[in-house]
């Protein structure tokens, strides 16, 4: 431990810490421009000058890279320290008059104009080297460095050319204290919608705000550490030391008594309907993207903006994209009508835009849903009944210029209409997830015609599957809204609990039995049984069925050459009698 005083206050700090760290620990402020806690100190800006008295010597030192030692007496705002700081800030101001933090510091220190000749009045770079250090120490790319010397010194890539070492991580811009480095779209456009990914885009993140467990994970694809081996900033700032880069994905086998499948859905990809122009024209959004856009934590802070940053004056919401369409999915996705109405309501609330809602049928089936629809009718949303045929930027009149034109047959008017809007929202339908078929194979689940998982019975067993102990919940079984999903999930959980509570498994009484007086021990049945439920009793030389393993398919019964094997409730005689009964001559 080192004991020193700063501005007369006694401070104890661990060995090796700098004067700046000691001051910050004591809650004292020493101004600095080139310091960042995760980077090595560099002492480039020289704004953190303090007066240090130690072992009879008195000198000016930079606080950021001078190690605090016992017996030091530090003065952060002595006349001598302030004079030096003022001079340094004055020189920085002459070099980079447009740098906001420098101007703020200059104002604080009472500097109006630098006495030195001012170079470029637009210059922002103060050559603090934060970007260069970040690129080297954090990114491990060393794509930028200082070029030239003295007054000619600049930060740039080697020879000022496009650098192959740059991985485009934008860490340099993030660390730049003066905004001298900016990240721009190659075409100079305002980038709004392109960054509308769901969730934050940092490499270490919590998957969603409702995530269970609520812990962050590292996206190895995006993490700089896994690309270059450097960085490790998250480990440095984590007080608990919880970040572990050596962790690997683990496959764990868990034995369970029952399984509930709640694997959910994917949204329909509107690129499959080329006439709707999604992905080709700007301002055509899917429902999920719009949801992100109006979200207060979204890229625009919840403002509904167009790709160029303007406010929309007309918005079209198109229902049934991919649903109720023989070319894609014949079924109704059930949730789109209601979320579309919600969007219309939000748009009314947040913008002055005219809202056009293109629907086939309004399906407001739930509690309070119809009432909500009526509220929207009163709010002045324009409801147009008819399927949209096309969304195109091709204008026919001057009024349509620069707009997206929605072509639709208005079936209530009996006319084809062209409605120019600034933004189109596609209410995409629900479809089974990408690995749906693989899951169906894994769990031996049948799928219904709409390719969702098939329940055992539509009315009597809506949460059970055809496999015992496997239950279905939510949209993997068919499109449904949140209340229905919660209800089905509750039922599935109760069914699973009922099995667990019972403590034993009830089997169908249809197992195969082998008559030991008839069995010749030929072992044909043993080879046929898919469940290895039949074994040879070596002493007696006959086959024996294990009741707990037998599922009652009857394959062994059909194959037994001596008729020794029979299936309870499906005995040969019983089926023969059925055949005779069915084929009795009509009287």
């Amino acid at each position: 431990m080192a004991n020193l005083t700063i501005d007369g206050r006694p401070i104890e700090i661990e060995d090796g810490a700098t004067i700046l760290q000691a001051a910050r620990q004591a809650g004292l402020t020493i101004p600095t421009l080139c310091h960042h806690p995760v980077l090595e100190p560099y002492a480039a800006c020289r704004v953190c000058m303090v007066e240090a008295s130690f072992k009879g010597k008195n000198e000016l030192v930079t606080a950021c890279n001078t190690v605090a030692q016992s017996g030091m007496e530090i003065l952060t705002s002595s006349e001598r320290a302030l004079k030096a700081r003022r001079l340094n800030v004055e020189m920085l101001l002459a070099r980079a008059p447009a740098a906001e933090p420098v101007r703020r510091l200059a104002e604080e220190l009472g500097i109006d104009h630098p006495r030195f000749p001012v170079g470029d009045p637009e210059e922002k770079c103060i050559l603090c080297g934060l970007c260069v250090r970040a690129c080297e120490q954090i990114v491990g790319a060393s794509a930028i460095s200082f070029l030239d010397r003295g007054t000619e010194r600049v930060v740039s890539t080697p020879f000022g050319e496009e650098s192959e070492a740059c991985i485009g991580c934008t860490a340099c811009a993030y660390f730049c204290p003066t905004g001298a480095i900016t990240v721009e779209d190659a075409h100079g456009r305002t980038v709004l919608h392109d960054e509308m990914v769901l969730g934050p885009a940092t490499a270490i993140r919590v998957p969603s705000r409702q995530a269970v467990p609520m812990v962050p994970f590292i996206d190895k694809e995006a993490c700089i550490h896994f690309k270059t081996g450097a960085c490790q900033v998250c480990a440095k700032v984590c007080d608990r030391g919880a970040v572990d880069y050596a962790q690997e994905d683990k496959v764990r086998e868990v034995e369970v008594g029952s399984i509930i499948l709640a694997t959910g859905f994917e949204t329909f990809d509107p690129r499959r309907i080329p006439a709707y122009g999604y992905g080709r024209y700007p301002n055509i959004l899917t429902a999920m993207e719009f949801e992100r856009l109006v979200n207060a934590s979204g890229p625009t802070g919840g403002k509904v903006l167009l790709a160029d940053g303007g406010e929309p004056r007309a918005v079209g919401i198109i229902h049934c994209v991919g649903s109720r369409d023989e070319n894609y999915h014949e079924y109704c996705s059930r949730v789109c009508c209601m979320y579309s109405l919600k969007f219309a309501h939000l748009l009314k609330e947040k913008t002055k835009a005219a809202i056009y809602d293109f629907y086939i049928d309004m399906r407001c089936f739930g509690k309070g849903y119809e009432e909500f629809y009526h509220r929207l009718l009163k709010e002045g949303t324009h409801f147009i009944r008819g399927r949209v045929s096309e969304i195109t930027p091709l204008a026919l009149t001057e009024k349509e210029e620069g707009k997206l034109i929605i072509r639709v047959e208005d079936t209530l008017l009996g006319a084809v209409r062209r409605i120019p809007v600034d933004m189109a929202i596609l209410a995409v339908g629900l479809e089974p997830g990408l690995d749906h078929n693989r899951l169906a194979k894994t769990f031996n689940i049948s799928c219904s015609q709409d390719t969702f998982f098939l329940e055992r019975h539509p009315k009597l067993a809506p949460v059970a599957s055809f496999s015992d102990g496997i239950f279905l919940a939510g949209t993997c079984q068919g499109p449904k809204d949140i209340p229905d999903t919660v209800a089905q999930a509750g039922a599935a959980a109760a069914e699973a609990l009922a099995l667990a509570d019972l403590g034993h498994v009830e089997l169908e009484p249809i197992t195969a039995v082998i008559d030991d007086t008839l069995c010749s021990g030929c072992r044909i049945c043993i080879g046929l049984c898919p469940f290895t439920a039949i074994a040879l009793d070596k002493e007696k030389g006959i086959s024996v069925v294990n009741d707990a393993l037998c599922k009652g398919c009857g394959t062994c019964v059909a194959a037994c050459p001596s008729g020794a094997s029979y299936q309870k409730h499906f005995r040969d005689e019983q089926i023969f009698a059925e055949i005779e009964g069915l084929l009795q001559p009509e009287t």
Partner: protein
Amino acid sequence: MNPEPFEPRLVGFLCNWCSYTGADLAGTARLAYAPNVRIIRVMCSGRVDPQFVLKAFKEGADGVLISGCHPGDCHYQEGNYKALRRHRLLLRVLEQFGIEKERFRLEWVSASEGPKFQQVCNDFTAQVRKLGPLNLDGNGGGRHA
């Protein structure tokens, strides 16, 4: 004279998990299909003993249908493959008895294929109707002799 059209008597062995459920679906969906197919439920198409088929023909059936899950979908993993093997073998036996192979059919109908079950029934009935009654003893009394 305008004789009544021949109504074949057909027996269908349907597996419990796919085809029987599919037939159930055809029913709940109100899909009308030829009533000629009389259904016997078995747990698996692999349960269908060749004797059942022979017995059905003996009792006067004009055709026999076995219907199970699609390959790979069997509730008992591979019962439908066994049915497929037995069907192939049995066809050869039936030919020796003078029973046309068109009278014995194997189909895959899944639990969601109500319309397919309807089509299979209609199709098979039409096919057997074309063949006429099964004449096993050669004197036209093959049906319920």
